[in-house]
C-alpha cells in the first residue's frame, strides 16, 4: 500500500495560507480576451447580484465608455467619488483609495486592473490599490484583458503587433481566489465593434483596426482560455494534494534562465516562466557579470536590473554571478542548484567569429551533461541597434531618472596620456632610427601601447595604437611626412601593432575589472563581517541602530534611519541624537504604511514613489520590528540585485541583533523578577518569624498592663514595660535593616563620600551602642590616614559587625585598623565560637545566619547589608577564623585618592613658646 496520506508540511502550509487569508479580502478577476467582450458588464451584474443578496457592495471605479447597457447597471449602485489630482497642470480623476478604506465595504468593484495611476497617487498601479484593499479585508471584483498579463505580454505583442505597457504581474492573477472568463466568440465581438459597442479612442482608430482582426481575436481567445485552463489545472492539483490523490509525481524540474544585457532578456524571462509553469518547476534567472559586461553603459545595466526585477515579480529567484568566463559560471550554478534545464538566448556571434572565438552557448551545450538546453531565437528587429525606447521603459520600470553620460576629467587625462606616450615613443624612435633596423624601432611603439593599455585601459590604448601607426608611418617609414607606404611589409607591422594593442588592453582591462569585482566582493564580505561583529558586541538597541546606520551609510552611500513604533504601533522619530549618516526628515507617513503592510515603499518602488527615500520593513521572527528609511544618493546602489541582497542581509542581521537584545532584556527582567520573588518569599518568612516573636511579647506584656486592675506590683509592671521596650527596639533594628537592604538593593543609596578619620567613625558607633567599657578594645595606629567614606553607612557596617560579635560571642571584641598597600583594613574580631568552616562566603548572603536555629533574632540581613555597603565603597568584606579562636570580620576601604591638604594653622602661642 502506497503512502496516500497528505504530506503534513503541505497541509501545514495550506492551513497557514488559509489563516493568512482569514481577514484578507477575496479577489475575483473577470478575464477577457480583448476589449468589448463584456467584462465590465459581467462584473457589475455579479456585483448587483451580491448586493441583492445583502452584501455591502459598492463601485470603486468603473469605465462604462459611454455604453448605455453597462451604464444602466450602475443605476442604484453606490459609487465612490473619484479623487482629483492635478498633475503638471492637468486635472486627472483617479480612484480614491483612502475613501474606499474609510468606507470599508464588503465588496468593491475595481475596473481595469492593469490601469496605471496618475503621478501623485499612493501606488503606481491599480493592482497595488487592489492589494491594499484585499489586505484591509475588502473583497474585490476586477476586470483584466489577457494581453495585460505580464508573462503573456510579449506573446500578445507578437500576435497582434500591439505591445501594451500596462501589465499586471502573474502572481496577482495566480493569487486570485476566482477567475471568471468572460468569453465572446470573435464574430460576435466584431459585430459589436461594428455596432459601435466597443470603446475605441478616436486617435487610435488605425491601431485598433489592426488589432481587431479575426485572426488576432481567435489567438487572444485561445490565450485567455489556455491561461484560465492552466489555473483550473493548478486548482485541480491543489485539490488532489489536499485530498491525497497522488498518482502524478512532482516533476522535480528546475529551470535556469540566463540573461544578458540585450532586449532578448525580457523575452527570455517570460519564456522561462512559461516553461517553468508548464513543468511546474522552480526557476532561477541568472545574470553573469563578466568584465566585458561591466563596461556597459548605465542604461544597459538598468535594463539588466529591470529584467531581473521582472523575473522576481514573475516568481523567479534571481542570481547575479560574476566571473571572467560566462559559461563556467553558468554551469557551476546549474550543478550547484541541480538545474535540469538551461534556457539561453541564441548566440549573438555568427559565422567565422563564432567559429573563431567560440560562443557561450556552444560551450554550455558541449559541457552540460544531463542538462537540457533550450535556445530562444532572437527577435528579428532586435538584431540591430537596441531602440532607445527600450531603455526608457527600463528606467520607467525601475523609477530611475536618466543620467547624462559625461567624459570625466580622469578619462580625459587618460587620453592625453596616450597622446603624450606616443609622442615620447616617436621622439625615442626618431633618435634610434639611424642606428637600428626599423623592425626593432617598432618595438618602442609597441612598448608605449602596452604601457598605455596597462595603465589607462582600452580607449586610450586604441588611440595610442592608431597614433603609433600614424606616427610610425609619418616619421619613420620613407617617404617621410607622407602616408604613402613604399614597403608593403610595414602593413604587417601596423596590423600586428593594432592587434597587440587590442589584446593587451583587453587583457589588462579584464584583469583590472576582475580585480575590481574581487575587491568589491571582498569589501562586501568585510562590511558584512564588520557589521556582524559590531552587532554581536552591541548591547543596546541604540548601539545596533548606530552600527546599522553607519554601515548602510558607508556601503550604500546614503543616509538612513531605523524607525521604531511606539507602544501604540505608531512609527515615531528616534529620540536619540543622530549620527553622521542619519536620515533626518524621513517621511513618517510612508514609514507607517510600510510598517502596517510590511511591504517596501517609496522612491523606486510601486508604492508612494513620490517619496524621497526608500522605506523597507524590518520584520523579526515573531513580530514587526520597525522600518528602515534609506535615502540613497543613487537608487541604483540600492536596487542592483547584489546590493539588494546585501541590504537584505544587513536588515536580517540588524533584526536578529535587535531581537537578541530584546530577548536578553526580557530574560533579564524575568530573571530579576524571579530573584525578587525568591527574595520576597525568604524575606516574608524571615520577617514573619522575626517580627512575630517580639510582637507576641509586646502584645502580651502591654495587654497585661492595659487590662490590669491594680493587682500587679510595681516591680512586675516595670518588668513588663522593660520587655515591651526591649522587644520594640529589636523590631526597630530589624525594620532598619530591612529598609536599608531595600534601599541598597534598589540602588537608591547615593554615597555621601567625605574624608573621615576612622577614629571618629568608631567613636560614633561605640558611643551609640553604649557597650560595656571592658568589652571592646580599640587599637588604632598613630597617624592613620583619613579615609573617603559615607559616615552613616560605614557606621552601620561597624554597628552590624559589633552587634553580631556581641550577639554570638561574649568574650572581648577587638577593633583595629591598618593600612596595607593602598587599602585600609578595618577588623572586628571576637572570641566566640568562630565562623563555621566553608560557610565564610554564605554568611554574607541574604537571610543567612551562622546558626539557623539561633535564638538571637535578626533576619540575617546584617552581613548582607555590610557587604552591599562595603562593595559600594569599592572595598571587600570577608570573614575568617582567628588563629587563637573566634571570628574576625575584615573590610577594606580604598585609599587611592589623596586626602585633601589642610593648611597649617598659625598659632601665636606655640610660636611664642
Amino acid at each position, binding site marked *: 500500500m502506497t503512502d496516500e496520506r497528505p504530506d503534513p508540511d503541505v497541509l501545514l502550509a495550506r492551513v497557514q495560507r488559509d489563516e493568512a487569508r482569514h481577514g484578507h479580502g477575496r479577489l475575483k478577476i473577470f478575464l477577457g480576451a480583448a476589449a468589448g467582450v463584456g467584462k465590465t458588464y459581467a462584473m457589475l451584474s455579479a456585483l448587483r447580484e451580491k448586493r441583492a443578496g445583502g452584501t455591502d457592495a459598492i463601485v470603486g471605479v468603473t469605465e462604462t465608455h459611454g455604453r448605455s447597457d453597462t451604464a444602466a447597471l450602475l443605476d442604484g449602485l453606490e459609487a465612490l467619488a473619484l479623487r482629483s489630482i492635478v498633475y503638471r497642470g492637468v486635472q486627472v480623476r483617479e480612484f480614491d483609495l483612502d475613501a474606499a478604506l474609510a468606507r470599508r465595504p464588503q465588496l468593491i468593484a475595481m475596473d481595469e486592473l492593469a490601469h496605471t495611476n496618475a503621478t501623485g497617487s499612493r501606488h503606481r498601479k491599480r493592482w497595488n490599490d487592489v492589494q491594499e484593499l484585499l489586505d484591509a479585508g475588502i473583497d474585490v471584483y476586477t476586470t483584466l484583458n489577457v494581453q495585460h498579463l505580464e508573462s503573456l505580454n510579449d506573446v500578445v505583442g507578437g500576435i497582434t503587433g500591439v505591445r501594451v505597457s500596462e501589465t499586471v504581474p502573474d502572481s496577482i492573477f495566480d493569487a486570485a481566489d476566482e477567475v471568471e472568463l468572460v468569453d465572446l466568440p470573435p464574430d460576435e465581438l466584431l459585430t459589436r465593434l461594428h455596432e459601435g459597442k466597443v470603446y475605441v479612442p478616436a486617435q487610435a482608430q488605425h491601431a485598433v483596426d489592426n488589432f481587431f482582426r479575426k485572426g488576432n481575436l481567435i489567438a487572444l481567445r485561445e490565450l485567455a482560455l489556455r491561461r484560465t485552463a492552466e489555473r483550473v489545472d493548478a486548482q485541480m492539483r491543489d485539490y488532489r494534494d489536499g485530498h491525497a490523490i497522488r498518482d502524478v509525481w512532482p516533476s522535480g524540474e528546475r529551470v535556469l534562465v540566463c540573461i544578458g544585457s540585450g532586449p532578448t532578456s525580457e523575452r527570455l524571462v517570460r519564456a522561462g516562466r512559461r516553461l517553468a509553469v508548464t513543468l511546474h518547476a522552480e526557476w532561477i534567472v541568472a545574470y553573469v557579470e563578466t568584465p566585458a559586461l561591466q563596461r556597459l553603459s548605465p542604461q544597459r545595466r538598468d535594463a539588466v536590473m529591470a529584467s531581473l526585477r521582472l523575473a522576481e515579480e514573475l516568481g523567479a529567484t534571481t542570481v547575479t554571478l560574476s566571473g571572467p568566463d560566462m559559461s563556467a559560471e553558468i554551469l557551476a550554478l546549474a550543478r550547484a542548484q541541480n538545474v535540469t534545464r538551461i534556457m539561453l538566448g541564441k548566440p549573438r556571434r555568427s559565422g567565422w567569429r563564432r567559429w573563431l572565438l567560440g560562443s557561450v552557448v556552444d560551450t554550455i551545450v558541449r559541457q552540460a551533461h544531463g542538462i537540457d538546453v533550450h535556445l530562444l531565437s532572437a527577435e528579428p528587429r532586435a538584431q540591430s541597434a537596441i531602440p532607445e525606447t527600450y531603455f526608457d521603459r527600463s528606467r520607467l520600470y525601475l523609477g530611475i531618472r536618466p543620467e547624462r553620460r559625461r567624459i570625466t576629467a580622469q578619462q580625459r587625462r587618460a587620453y592625453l596620456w596616450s597622446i603624450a606616450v606616443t609622442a615620447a615613443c616617436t621622439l625615442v624612435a626618431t633618435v634610434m632610427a639611424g642606428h637600428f633596423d626599423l623592425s626593432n624601432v617598432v618595438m618602442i611603439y609597441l612598448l608605449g601601447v602596452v604601457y598605455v593599455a596597462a595603465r589607462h585601459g582600452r580607449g586610450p590604448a586604441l588611440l595610442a595604437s592608431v597614433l603609433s601607426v600614424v606616427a610610425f608611418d609619418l616619421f619613420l617609414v620613407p617617404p617621410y611626412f607622407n602616408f604613402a607606404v613604399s614597403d608593403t611589409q610595414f602593413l604587417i607591422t601596423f596590423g600586428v601593432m593594432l592587434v597587440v594593442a587590442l589584446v593587451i588592453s583587453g587583457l589588462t582591462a579584464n584583469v583590472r575589472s576582475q580585480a575590481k569585482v574581487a575587491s568589491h566582493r571582498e569589501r562586501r564580505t568585510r562590511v558584512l563581517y564588520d557589521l556582524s561583529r559590531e552587532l554581536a558586541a552591541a548591547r543596546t538597541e541604540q548601539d545596533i541602530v548606530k552600527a546599522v546606520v553607519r554601515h548602510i551609510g558607508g556601503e550604500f552611500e546614503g543616509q538612513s534611519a531605523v524607525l521604531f513604533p511606539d507602544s501604540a504601533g505608531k512609527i515615531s522619530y528616534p529620540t536619540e541624537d543622530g549620527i553622521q549618516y542619519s536620515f533626518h526628515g524621513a517621511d513618517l507617513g510612508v514609514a507607517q504604511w510600510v510598517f502596517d503592510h510590511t511591504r517596501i515603499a517609496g522612491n523606486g518602488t510601486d508604492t508612494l514613489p513620490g517619496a524621497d527615500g526608500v522605506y523597507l520593513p524590518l520584520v523579526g521572527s515573531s513580530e514587526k520590528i520597525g522600518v528602515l528609511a534609506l535615502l540613497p544618493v543613487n537608487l541604483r546602489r540600492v536596487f542592483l540585485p547584489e546590493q539588494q541582497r546585501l541590504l537584505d542581509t544587513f536588515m536580517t542581521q540588524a533584526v536578529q541583533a535587535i531581537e537578541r537584545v530584546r530577548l536578553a532584556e526580557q530574560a533579564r527582567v524575568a530573571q530579576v523578577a524571579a530573584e525578587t520573588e525568591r527574595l520576597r518569599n525568604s524575606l516574608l518568612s524571615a520577617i514573619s518569624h522575626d517580627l512575630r516573636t517580639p510582637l507576641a511579647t509586646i502584645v502580651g506584656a502591654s495587654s497585661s498592663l492595659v487590662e490590669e486592675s491594680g493587682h500587679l506590683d510595681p516591680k512586675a509592671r516595670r518588668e513588663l514595660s522593660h520587655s515591651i521596650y526591649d522587644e*520594640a527596639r529589636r523590631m*526597630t533594628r530589624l525594620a*532598619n535593616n530591612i*529598609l*536599608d537592604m531595600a*534601599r541598597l538593593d534598589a540602588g537608591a543609596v547615593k554615597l*555621601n563620600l*567625605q*574624608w*573621615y*578619620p576612622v*577614629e*571618629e*567613625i*568608631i*567613636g*560614633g558607633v*561605640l*558611643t551609640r551602642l553604649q557597650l560595656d*567599657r571592658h568589652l571592646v578594645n*580599640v587599637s*588604632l595606629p598613630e597617624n592613620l590616614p*583619613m579615609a573617603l567614606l*559615607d*559616615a*552613616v553607612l560605614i*557606621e552601620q557596617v561597624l554597628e552590624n559587625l559589633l552587634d553580631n560579635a556581641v550577639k554570638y560571642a561574649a568574650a572581648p571584641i577587638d577593633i583595629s585598623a591598618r593600612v596595607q598597600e593602598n587599602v585600609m583594613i578595618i577588623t572586628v574580631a571576637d572570641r566566640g565560637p568562630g565562623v563555621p568552616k566553608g560557610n565564610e562566603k554564605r554568611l554574607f548572603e541574604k537571610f543567612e545566619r551562622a546558626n539557623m536555629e539561633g535564638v538571637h533574632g535578626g533576619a540575617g540581613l546584617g552581613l548582607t547589608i555590610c557587604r552591599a555597603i562595603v562593595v559600594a565603597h569599592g572595598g571587600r568584606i570577608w570573614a575568617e577564623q582567628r588563629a587563637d579562636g573566634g571570628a574576625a570580620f575584615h573590610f577594606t576601604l580604598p585609599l587611592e585618592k589623596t*586626602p*585633601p591638604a*589642610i593648611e597649617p*594653622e598659625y*598659632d*601665636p*602661642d*606655640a610660636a611664642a*613658646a
Partner: protein
Amino acid sequence: MPAVVIIEDDAQIRRFLRTALGAQGFRIHEAASGQQGLVETATRKPDILILDLGLPDIDGVQVVRELRAWTTLPIIVLSARSQEDDKIAALDAGADDYLTKPFGVGELIARIQVALRHRSAGVKDGADGIFSVADVKIDLGRRQVFVADCEVHLTPIEYRLLALLIQHAGRVVTHRQLLKEVWGPSYVENSHYLRVYMGALRHKLEADPTRPRFLLTEAGVGYRLSPDEK
C-alpha cells in the same frame, strides 16, 4: 507651665507625646498638618515647638523657614532615619535640634530642657565664665582650658571650635554652621578641616578619643557638646 505645640500627622505618636509630656507638666497643643501647625503656633504662642519633618501638606523644612521669619521660638524636629539631608536642611534653616524616630521619652525631654534653657539663658550659660564637663574646665573669660586641673594648650581654631560648641551646649551644630563660624563662609564645603580639628580636640580633652564622653559625633549631621558626661 511651658506650652508646647506638636505638629505631627501620626495620631499614635501625638498620643504618646501628649501622655509623656503631659505627665511632665507641659501644656500641649496639637496640629495634624503643617498649615494647622502654623496657625496653632501663631495663636498659642508656645515656649517650644516639636515638628515632624514628614508632613502631608507642607515640607517640614519649609515650616521651619516660615516660622523663623518671625519667631526665635525653639524648634525640635522629628525625622525618620535615612533623612540626613532633611535634618541638615531643617537645622540650617534654624531648627534648634533634632530627634530620630524612634526615640525614647528621656531623650526628648532632655532635648526640650536644653532648648528651653538656651532660650531663657541665651549664651549666659556659665555666667561665671567657667564651663565644666567631666574633668574638663574651660575658663571662657581667660580663654584657658584645664584637664584634671592641668592647663592644656589649644590653638586659636581649636579654641574657637570648642567655644562655639559650648555656646550651643547640648544642641547639635551642623558641619556647615561650625565651618562658617570658625573658618569663615568660604570653608563651608571643607568638612575635613572640621574633622581633623575635632580629632585634635578629642585627643587633647577626652580620656579615650574612640569613646568620647562629651565631644559627640552626630553622624552625617554635625557635632554636639554634651553638657552631661556620658
